[in-house]
């Protein structure tokens, strides 16, 4: 080894040492190329008239025709509005409720009780959205659901065809989203709160600060970095939605599209059910590009205020 090394220029030996490391990286990098980078180039499809007979790459270029069609429909506005509004509500309410629950959970000194609550409230986070849609169905089923058969009659109200009435779905979807996600974010906040030095609170108590005051002046400021980070992550993804929530929970019911159709469900239906690949690709392109700008933008803003909280 040593004698051989002398014959080769130093830089090449140096590089040869790393060959095994590059080999290790190969499967992962190949996967990222296939799963992530090829589809990025595939975004070009949005500018083509996709024709399976000719093959995707040989299909004709049509310029921005797919986009003019997409934005000529009312769908473009509805899916953008729904995506943005739902996400805005989810961010504000979702984080707010999770913080509130975390503060309350932090008040509970009984370790066993705390552990119990913790375990139970992440339960919804563990199950698939398919199972969630079954649970929702048990409540909302028009003929057999708990609401129509038990709760509404008890209140003296008429049964409601839940899966046909779009106006209820903004509330239903928000509730389901919070029910499924609050436990998760709450645990994250709780971990941050547990890290706060108890001495701050002891000092505050001696000064006679009320619990409310302690929360406002100690707890909240101390967890601000993590709130900012989670909010930033969410704002960066405001153009994306939880496909399962908007597709599975309303059971893909056509009469609900006005309040349940978001960009992700629109792209999916266009591709898989309507065979409208051009528009679907255009909507996907729109989502990818605007989404990318939003991630960069939200990070830039946070960087301006506080470099440490920025993601990159």
């Amino acid at each position: 080894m040593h004698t051989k090394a002398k014959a080769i220029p130093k830089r090449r030996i140096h590089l040869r040492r790393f060959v095994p490391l590059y080999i290790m990286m190969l499967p992962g990098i190949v996967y990222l190329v296939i799963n992530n980078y090829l589809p990025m180039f595939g975004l070009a499809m949005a500018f083509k008239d996709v024709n399976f007979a000719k093959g995707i790459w040989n299909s004709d270029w049509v310029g921005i025709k797919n986009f003019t069609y997409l934005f000529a429909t009312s769908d473009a506005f509805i899916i953008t509005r729904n995506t943005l509004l739902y996400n805005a509500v989810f961010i504000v309410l979702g984080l707010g409720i999770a913080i509130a629950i975390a503060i309350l959970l932090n008040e509970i000194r009984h370790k066993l009780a705390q552990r119990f609550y913790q375990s139970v409230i992440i339960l919804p986070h563990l199950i698939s959205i398919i199972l969630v849609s079954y649970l929702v169905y048990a409540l909302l089923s028009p003929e057999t659901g708990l609401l129509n058969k038990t709760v509404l009659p008890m209140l003296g109200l008429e049964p409601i065809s839940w899966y046909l009435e779009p106006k209820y779905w903004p509330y239903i979807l928000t509730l389901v989203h919070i029910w499924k996600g609050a436990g998760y974010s709450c645990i994250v906040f709780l971990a941050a709160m547990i890290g706060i030095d108890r001495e701050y609170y002891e000092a505050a108590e001696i000064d006679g600060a009320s619990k409310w005051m302690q929360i406002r002046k100690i707890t909240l400021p101390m967890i601000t970095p993590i709130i900012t980070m989670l909010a930033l992550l969410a704002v960066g993804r405001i153009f994306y939605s939880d496909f399962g929530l908007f597709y599975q929970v309303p059971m893909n019911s056509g009469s609900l599209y006005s309040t349940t159709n978001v960009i992700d469900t629109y792209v999916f239906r266009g591709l898989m059910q309507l065979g409208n690949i051009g528009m679907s690709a255009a909507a996907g392109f729109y989502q990818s590009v605007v989404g990318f700008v939003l991630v960069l933008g939200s990070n830039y803003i946070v960087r301006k205020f506080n470099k440490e909280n920025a993601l990159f």
Partner: protein
Amino acid sequence: MAKAYRGWRLAAHIVLGLFSLSCILPFILMFMASITDDNAIVNDGYSFFPSKFSFGAYEYLFQASDLILRAYGVTVLVTVVGTAASLLMTSLLAYPLSRKDLPGGKIMAFIVFFTLLFNGGLVPTYMVYTQVFHIQNTLWAQIVPWLLMNGFNVLLMRSFFINTIPAAVIESASIDGAGEFTIYRRMILPLSLPILATIGLFQALAFWNDWNNGLVFVNDPNVLNLQNVLNQIMSNIDFLSMNSNMGTGEALSNMPRETFRMAIAVIGVVPILLAYPFFQRYFVKGLTIGAVKG
């Protein structure tokens, strides 16, 4: 003062108690509905207190056990193989990236990071997998797209390596003549069991709960996993009788449809609920690792 605190604590117990109830009750409703007599359902709907019990729905499920067992088999196989492959690929990529001395390491890390910021979305991904790799209706479709590895886990593991395994230790092993693969196997993997367990747990859950790949890439009932079967039954209750040994005709017309839906959902949720107490602690710990800076 102490009294005021007691008020807070009481409020905390009430709010958390109510929230906990809201998390548990739907599962109980589902279970009670599944053991209710079908005629009772027609009259009273799904109820916590059924007027008449019946295990009819489970008997029907048993008749379709070939399809359900098959779906379970697909889920278990995909979860085991997928999680193992995922951990291997993730750690094999993360370890070299954690080495400060690797030429080109920064560029590679950026290639991984960029996938978190930008992606092609459903349509191009669908085209790549179906038109170029033709994985539709194979088990590959349940494992590979979107799920197999993600940049976030790679970066998470990389920062774990950087923070917990000193470069000097690796260097000294290298001086002792250990090759890179030996270092990876004998040192890196054993020292990083906590992060492997955490990421493995999350990957396993992702594979177990995945229905998206089946929905997009699979039509063949033989390759559907449990979630896909649940998904199909939700939109078409006859899916099960059409694709199993259950037969048609008399058996089908007597099927307790409404309780049956709930019974199959119970079958789907029970494994997670049973396993949860065992991985609960790691899960909670993992949530915080994942969120507090990747």
